[in-house]
């Protein structure tokens, strides 16, 4: 086995038959850990680099097995729900193993590149017929740079088409090293306003924008797909979207797409024992359509929003 194949990292999901992230029928490998803390994040389980133990109240049958097995006595379960003493939890996952209902579960586990690619390769017929392949996502895949690059190299060895969804918030050399191994790159551009970006994501956008420009210069043939999640109260204005679409046009993106804000990640916050930061915020459908029309005027190659 090659050195690539033995490289290990933390993955929290492998999603087959993905049809919205890159060409063809794809398998998405979600890597754990992210430098950003976007308030609207729909994958809160992706944020920490280490595995998270979570609890799904809808599956719990109240058997108390987890409480009894915990070596740290860090759990208690009553009519209010499960209480966890985070200070005492050592992440041993004894509660996960004992739970008959899979109500206690773990987001993320360590696995090696070879095993992951074996799983990805199970759909090689579908890739061959549809032009699909592997998509790395996260979290931020390059938050585990060695691991992510090893995954891409191994996929290349196995002749699997490679795409990556990234926030581009990483050292330039890492970003370029990944780009060299990619056939298709998807990057989110959330705002051109550096302060606002800092306030809503915890990081400035400077490195992100510069990485996108560098990649475009270094790899002019690499398919670049830029996306903007349209978030109420953050960037759902004509000014913001016009600026980002202008950036996408100038940098020479092949595809630009607006993604409507959705709340599908909300339950995962609950599973992790966290509050949902966006509250009841909602995106107005008409204004989204007009923003989309605006993007279309600036960049004729913009994708129509998928219903």
């Amino acid at each position: 086995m090659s050195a690539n194949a033995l490289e290990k990292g933390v993955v929290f999901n492998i999603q087959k038959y993905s049809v919205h992230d890159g060409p063809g029928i794809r398998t998405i490998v979600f890597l754990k850990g992210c430098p950003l803390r976007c308030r609207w994040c729909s994958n809160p389980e992706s944020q920490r680099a280490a595995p998270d133990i979570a609890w799904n109240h809808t599956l719990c049958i109240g058997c108390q097995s987890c409480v009894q097995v915990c070596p740290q006595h860090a759990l208690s379960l009553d009519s209010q729900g499960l209480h966890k003493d985070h200070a005492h939890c050592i992440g041993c996952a004894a509660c996960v193993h004992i739970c008959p209902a899979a109500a206690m579960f773990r987001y993320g586990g360590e696995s090696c590149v070879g095993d992951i690619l074996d799983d990805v390769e199970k759909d090689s017929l579908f890739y061959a017929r549809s032009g699909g392949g592997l998509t790395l996502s996260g979290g931020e895949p390059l938050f585990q740079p060695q691991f992510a690059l090893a995954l891409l190299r191994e996929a290349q060895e196995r002749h699997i088409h490679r795409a990556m969804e990234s926030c581009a918030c990483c050292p330039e050399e890492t970003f370029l090293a990944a780009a060299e191994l990619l056939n298709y790159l998807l990057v989110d551009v959330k705002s051109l306003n550096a302060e606002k970006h800092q306030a809503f994501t915890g990081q400035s956008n400077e490195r992100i924008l510069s990485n996108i420009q560098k990649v475009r210069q270094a790899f002019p043939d690499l398919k670049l797909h830029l996306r903007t999640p349209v978030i109420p109260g953050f960037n759902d204005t004509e000014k913001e979207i016009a600026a980002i679409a202008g950036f996408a046009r100038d940098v020479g993106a092949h595809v630009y797409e607006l993604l409507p804000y959705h709340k599908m990640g909300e339950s995962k916050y609950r599973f992790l024992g966290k509050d949902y930061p966006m509250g009841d915020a909602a995106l107005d459908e008409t204004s989204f359509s007009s923003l989309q029309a605006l993007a279309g005027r600036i960049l004729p190659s913009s994708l129509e929003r998928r219903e």
Partner: protein
Amino acid sequence: MSCCCALSPQEKILQDKAAGKDNPNRSKHERLFDILETFDGMAPIIDADRALLFTQSMKETEGQPLELRWAKALMNIARHIPVHIDYRQLLAGRCGTTGRYGILYPELDGDFMADALDALAEAKTAAPISVSPDVAAKVRHEITPYWKGKTFHEDLNRSLPPEVHRLAYNDELGIKTRFVVSENASYRSSQQWVLDYAKVIDRGFAGIKADAQARLDALDPLSPMDTLKKRPFLEAVIITCDAIVVWAHRHAELARSMASEEKDPVRREELLQIAERCERVPEFPARNFREAVQAQWFAQMFSRLEQRTGTIISNGRMDQYFYRLYKQDIESGAITDDEVLEMLDCMWVGMAQFTDISLSPGGLATQEGYAHWEAVTIGGQTRDGKDATNELSYLILKSRQASPMPYPDLATRIHSRSPQRFLWEIAETIKVGQGYPKLFNDEEIIPLHLAKGAPLGDIFDYTASGCAEIRMPNRDTMTSSCGQVNLGAALEMVLRNGRMKKYGEELIGLETGDPRTFTCWEDFWQAYLRQLDHLLAASYVEQCVIHHTRARHFAGPLASCLHDLCMASCMDLHTDEKIPGGIDLGFVDIIGFATLVDSLSAVKKCVYEEHSVGMDELLRALDDDFEGHEALRLRLTRAPKFGNNDMYADSIGLAVDRAAQEYCHKYAPETGLHIDIRTVSVTANVPHGKEVGALPCGRKAWMPFSDGSSPAQGADLKGPTQSIISNYNTKNWDYNERAARLLNIKFSPKCLEGDAGTEKLVSFIRVFCDLKLWHLQFNVINRDTLLAAQADPKRYRNLIIRIAGYSAYFTELSRDLQNDLISRTEQTSI
């Protein structure tokens, strides 16, 4: 935001309808919609005319050769059954009263028909049937008294050995099915069948009659066999050819007399044209496309008057046998594509009115929702192995996209060189969300049948017939319908030492020992194999008795005269003797495949490998239907499951399939029949489930099993790609004892959206073809729509859903089956 709930076109139309908007397809299909409105939502009416006329003739011909009696009965029907030409219809010919209707076949169930009709009239089911007091009285006084003691099912009931009888029936009379080793021969005189329509169109019945006459003239008057066997067969053919022509001519007369009274000049002209067509076909070869459609329709309808082919007289390869005249008329300008569509619409709406009504409880339970499968087949390859797709294939797809009815079912043959345009149009039709077309894979079916002994040209020319089966119209010769083995029962009998929860202490299977004494997985597996073989053996015995008993009760001179081999040998298709040159293909259905595999996987993993569940504990939990054992049940459900491309479960599935095929490989040859393993449940997964208590996969007592060869309800968590690869993983490619395998996949409309969605569905279909799976069908619907339809059935009366090889109106299904359909996983993507 509505970003997570895209609607299929069908759902959109239903929503618009509720908002008072017209169906957007209406303007192009006025005639179809106008005719549909005359019977939409109507409960089928039972019409007893066919049964009365059939009975009347059979009374008069006792003692004569059976095929001759059948032909005379057909002539009696042809002469006297009321004929109709429907409002706005361009096609003439129906088997019963106007509106939605069903007819009776007393040769099958005449002995209990009167009681069954009384029960049907009172039954409160999702699919009600209307029986008038007059019809009920006629059946009670004129039909039932004659048939008592003479029906096929009574003969079968007497002929089955007692040890097989008690696996098949719950009562002495053999009316109430026990779904352990059930049969369905007693409510159909033939397994699905397809006529050689090309012969009807290209030669006409005058030509077939002339052929029979020539053979009759050439008989050796000194040969006793010629006199005893061939003569009556040929005479029956001649009478039948005359009968269908008499029937057609009566329609011509009716059309002319209606025309003379018709005030609307347009309709008058239509009626005169109908009259002209009925005078010409099916007696003589069709000269144009319209005549060809009328000829086909007469043959199809007359075959329904002849016999009950278990709901199915298939339409064969319509884009092939109509193509010559279609092309001729298009090129000469005699017809336009819109007029072709209108003729096809007229045929579809005619099919939609005929409902095949089973009077037996077994038939009602296994084919819910007035199931009928007149599958129209398109695409595939020509007899010489070239792609067969043509302009008519596309027109037929188009016409089915616009139709708001589940009938006819549409079957598309796919092969490795199917044009991209064809797959694209198929994908677009699937996306409409009405459950068709179903896909048949030439890359599996053709080589497999070569191994079963089919000639190349014949198998290249196969047609879909039934829900997932195929036929070679001039090569297939076995019409016996086939049995079903309950896999869940086999497993339950391992766990209960030959007994079943439902039947208490009655010993049903073999005593394979107390499972608590088994020391390892191998012991358990061996016990399962013994139970399985016991049930398969009973099914084989049942099959052989059925095959030989049927020949004493049924004849089919119409079906036979359209079959090259029957004509060559002068033998009726229903004979139990070997028809020279024929291939006898039959099957035993195994019901509950994934439910069984998941249960075996749970036992192997939890009891014998991880030791997380004790056998004693398991038995108690199953006996309690998991009440008070929820944690245990959940632990069992976490064992690997079929449908996720997980070799732990899939290798068990492979072994299950292999074991069944090995039995057939060993014992089929002595029967002289190919009785192979089919994995198609139709709706039998519901009644078979009702026989069996809780199972180790976590399924509760009496709940439906998994359907066909699909993963169990909610078990396929890794998406559609893994689900179809699992199907591939569990096929024994080195055995040819496999028959049809039905696979259902449900998609949410969201993941097939737009051109990108269509493109990915096309790729998915290509992979299905690469994997050489037999059959695949799709439901493209939101789960919420199904729940809404349950809550408000009136509003969703026209919601069509895929079941198993056929589509039906969702609200006409039983609650059990509705729930089963809802619980099958909906594949989405993130």
